[in-house]
């Protein structure tokens, strides 16, 4: 009995993924839960485990090809199941395929695969290629001639935009259609940029899934919110001396202590006093959603692009635990092993561009969150202390808020709170 396993939506409305590596070959026996393929989606790189035990009969898509969610990935000959029983098996939801161990190849935490993502072919002869075509929900309007021509020219008519009444595709539209590069025409890819044409002055490279996601999210944020940014400075000599003192005991516990855990702590405590900053607007239902959890997302720079893992319930963590969590998440980010779970449910974001360079910025809000705090590079600057100009250690902060949600006064009060905590870290630790 054949079982067709379709590329599942592994969360948050994925549309497509790129095959980075096949772990299986045709004819190979596999167990349920065993990794089939390594896929790059717009959020993560992850292994897709097999939902069934059996023998791989067909593999769809080559490495470097983009597969749409719901399209077939593999066909598996299910052993020992026949007829109706097989249908039942295939239709039963595939629950909780849990990878054996954290750090192993598979990092998909939980996958709930609905029965709809699995199709059984009508007969044992295997599906016809036609049945497997992924069709958009709505059939495009086209003239009969345009359909015949598109079929003949091997063009998916649904990809042609029509110029006729109500967007109907006509003969002329088919003739004028220039087929986009098909994914199979792309040169092999290991997630690295595949160069498929280079002119004299420019090099063309396909967009990676992660770049597509970043572009979409950034634009969405800028278009959906009213950005306003506030700049502040805080003298942190006291925080520096505390960090110096704690460095040793932390490194004994294999943890590098940076300023970031303190800033996370200060932010969480300020958020508790200013809930507008830990909220989002629910426009459709005309209401506010205030988060009772303090999940701090941290922007991490990786060679492939920006990723934003989340420290969940940061309010319940000590400085040490926060530091450990930061190390863990940045390591995963660097190794492209972040799971979707690692990146979900953030309520407020920190971006620490100062670790690379930069004093002030106008950070883009991680939509639909209400605000983002940018951390600049610590500067040696003259400051006035007790009417004396002395050398100070100044941390520049840039707070972008969604002005629809957060008024200027509230934003100022919030950042003042953070300044207070950072300039007087003992107070922060006490609270």
């Amino acid at each position, binding site marked *: 009995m054949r079982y067709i396993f379709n590329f599942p939506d592994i969360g948050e409305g994925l549309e497509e993924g790129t095959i980075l590596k096949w772990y299986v070959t045709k004819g190979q026996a596999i167990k349920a839960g065993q990794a089939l393929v390594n896929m790059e989606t717009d959020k993560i790189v992850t292994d897709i485990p097999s939902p069934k035990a059996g023998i791989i009969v067909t593999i769809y898509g080559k490495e470097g090809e983009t597969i749409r969610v719901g399209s077939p990935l593999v066909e598996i000959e299910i052993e020992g199941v026949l007829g109706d029983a097989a249908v039942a098996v295939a239709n039963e939801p595939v629950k909780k395929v849990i990878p054996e161990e954290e750090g192993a190849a598979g990092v998909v935490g939980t996958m709930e695969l609905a029965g709809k993502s699995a199709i059984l072919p009508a007969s044992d002869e295997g599906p016809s290629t036609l049945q497997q075509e992924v069709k958009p929900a709505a059939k495009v309007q086209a003239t009969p001639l*345009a359909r015949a021509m598109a079929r003949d020219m091997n063009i998916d008519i649904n990809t042609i935009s029509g110029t006729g009444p109500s967007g109907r595709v006509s*003969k002329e539209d088919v003739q004028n259609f220039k087929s986009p590069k098909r994914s199979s025409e792309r040169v092999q890819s290991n997630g690295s940029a595949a160069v498929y044409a280079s002119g004299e002055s420019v090099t063309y490279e396909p967009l990676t899934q992660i770049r597509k996601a970043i572009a979409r999210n950034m634009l969405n944020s800028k278009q959906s919110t009213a950005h306003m940014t506030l700049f502040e400075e805080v003298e942190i000599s006291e925080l520096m001396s505390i960090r110096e003192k704690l460095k040793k005991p932390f490194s004994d516990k294999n943890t590098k202590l940076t300023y970031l855990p303190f800033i996370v702590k200060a932010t969480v405590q300020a958020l508790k006093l200013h809930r507008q900053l830990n909220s989002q607007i629910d426009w459709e239902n005309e209401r506010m959603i205030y988060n009772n959890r303090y999940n701090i997302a941290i922007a991490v720079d990786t060679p492939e692009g920006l990723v934003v893992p989340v420290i969940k319930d940061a309010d319940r963590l000590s400085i040490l635990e926060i530091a450990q969590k930061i190390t863990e998440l940045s390591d995963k980010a660097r190794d492209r092993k972040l799971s979707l779970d690692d990146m979900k449910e953030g309520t407020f974001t920190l971006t620490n561009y100062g670790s690379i360079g930069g004093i002030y910025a106008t950070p883009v809000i991680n939509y639909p969150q209400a605000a983002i705090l940018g951390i600049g590079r610590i500067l040696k600057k003259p400051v006035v202390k007790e009417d004396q100009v002395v050398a100070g250690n100044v941390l520049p902060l840039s707070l972008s808020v969604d002005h629809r949600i957060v008024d200027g006064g509230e934003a100022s009060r919030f950042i003042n709170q953070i300044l207070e905590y950072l300039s007087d870290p003992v107070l922060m630790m006490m609270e």
Partner: protein
Amino acid sequence: MEYDLIIIGAGPAGYVAAIRAGQVGLKTAIVEKEYIGGMCMNWGCIPTKALLESAKVFNKVKVAEEFGIDGIDLKKLSFNWEKAKARSNRITRKLIGGVSHLLKENGIEIISGTARLGSDHSIYVDDKKIRAKNIIIATGSKPKAMDKMLSNAPIVEMEKLFELDSIPENVIVTGNHVSSVEMAQFFNLIGKKVTLIANSDFFMVGLDEYLISTVTEKLKTDNIDLILNVYPEKFENSELHIGGFKIKCDLLVNCNSRKAIFPESEIPLELTERGFLKTSDTFETNIKGVFAIGDVSGKSFVAHVASAQGIHIVNYIKGIKGNFDSTTYPINMYTIPEMSQIGMTEQAIKDVGIEYKISEFPLSVNGKAMIEGNTEGFIRMISDKKYGQILGIQIVAANATDMIAEAGAFMNLEATIYDVAKTIHAHPTVSEIYMEASFDAVEKAIHH
């Protein structure tokens, strides 16, 4: 007074454009020197078809006995020109009234008089000056005048035909187009001796050769003399001297090919080689914002295309852009039987080198045609071999001019011969011949 749009000429190009302009909110005036409805309603499409219909009834009554109707004395049967004319007038009056009403209802100002184009987008009507952002010239056409040597001949143009009290015995119709053939057949149907003469050997240019030979055959069986490629020499003793013939002639009907009627213009209007207003793809003349549609532009000479151009150009002025398909429209001939064609002719298809297939089906085996006693005719569908796209259709049938509308829909929607074959046609209807012919193309006709 400044308008968004002034239209010169209230024929099927101008009045349709005006109504559309009113609908989309353009402040519009239409200038007409004589007849609302133009040639179409006053002495063209409508009245001539009304006359032809009277002639068809006259003809049909002659076979009433065949249909089981007694009591008709064929010896007493006669065609009453005055009554037929009166019926035609009633129809045209009603339609013209309707158009005038629609113009008013859509807020169009109707200005009576002759328009003259000033510079700076102005129009003078009897020395009154008005201005408009856009101007549409839709002044139409008229037949070329007959040679001066024939000034003593009883010449009548269609415009004046309806003023005649009676139709004499010997009629000569000039011209080489659809309307010439229609008029020739009309006079023939009401019992006159008719000769059709054309001063070129181009006859029915634009029609498929198969249709042309059908028409030629029909004229022969109807006893209408057809003389091509001749010029009338003189008129003497009630005879027209032409190409060595002397033809008895009591009435010479001028259905010559047409020439444009221009408004006077301070800025010279550019013309085509054939003497029509030169226009761009968007129907704009050499003066920006001045458009020309209908016969005066020489792009087509049928009312339905002129009206479509009118709607198209008002949309264009309103910023609603679209392509104007000038190829897919029916050419109708309201003869017995009617003839109609749409799309490409077989010759044109050959010229562009498309591989094609012709599917035919005769009316002689169609049930409804037999019932109606109109078994003369056929359908001829030309489709391309590769995809089965319908390229052209010709129909000869009693109601061919209505039946062709289905072909128009098929062609506009880029249907293939397979789509026609799949379309269930009611039984019994003459239109079943579409289905039968397409079956023939796909595989095999059922009833043939």
